[in-house]
């Protein structure tokens, strides 16, 4: 476990989480959530949980981002609150 590496990733995690919550454009929000998943994937790979990291990369950063973007395209693009 590399502390400095972890802390950089964790800071970025918080930043992406706040952006995903505050941004009004839901398409941008889904993409930022994809980045969030990928950062978590890096964190898990670095902690030695490679199986989990692999799943997170495939499901979280890959397919679920695409599915969320597909949903945004078919519903509303702008968030109301």
């Amino acid at each position, binding site marked *: *476990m590399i502390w400095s590496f972890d802390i950089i990733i964790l800071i970025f995690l918080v930043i992406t989480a706040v952006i995903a919550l505050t941004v009004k454009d839901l398409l941008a929000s889904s993409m930022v959530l994809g980045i969030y998943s990928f950062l978590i994937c890096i964190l898990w790979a670095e902690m030695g949980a490679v199986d989990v990291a692999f799943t997170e990369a495939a499901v979280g950063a890959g397919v679920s981002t695409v599915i969320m973007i597909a949903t945004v395209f*078919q519903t509303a693009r702008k968030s109301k609150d």
Partner: protein
Amino acid sequence: MKPMKLAALLTVIATGGLLLYATSDLPDWGDPLSPANAGDLSTHYIQDSRDDTEVPNLVTAVLADYRGYDTMFETVVIFVAGLGILSILGQGKRVEPLAEPVASEGNRERDMITITTCRLVVPIIQIFALYVIAHGHYSPGGGFQGGVMLGASFILIALTSGLPDALKRMSQERAIFLAGLGVLIYAGTGLLCMALGRNFLDYEILHKVLGGTGVKARYDSMLIVEIGVAFTVMAIMFIIYAVLSSKGRMRGGL
């Protein structure tokens, strides 16, 4: 600020504070004496899984053999989730995939560069997905990851060449059939163990069917159930995308 929002903010802050407070009770990262690492069960997995199953990747052994029930019902959860999305958003009646996109439905100019690139990339993704499924005993990966990648390759076709093109390769009926087949393979392996006189998903007895020793039977059965998981996950991932991107009409798409 509205009172409801203020109440929600206070609740979130209180919950977050409690969670942060609780983390001080957690063992250190990688602590060999923590209950999760030093318990009887974990010690058994770590020390004996190689002798029990011959599988070098401990995670696969735990996932597909020791905790076979967990993985089976995870597969069932994915299956049910896909059926739920299909029954809520789908049109219900059988929809024939169209050979050519209708002029009014998603018939925008397709870019030749993206289509050609994806044609080149999709076979590589699928081969790598098959490798991930088959090599799950030795390296990270297995049915879930490989199945998601197979599903993603079909989603990539749908994104670039259009949903009708992807549905020609993986129609709704075929996807539902494959999803059911995957659960059937997994549960059928378990039922076969019962038919041979052991507990559900106790693979050791399957050496009567698969040949070899009991240990080898556990090794082989894990691959069989991983293939079942991969079928279900692949089909359901594609179904979810197809239904959501076309509002259930299964044509047009993005």
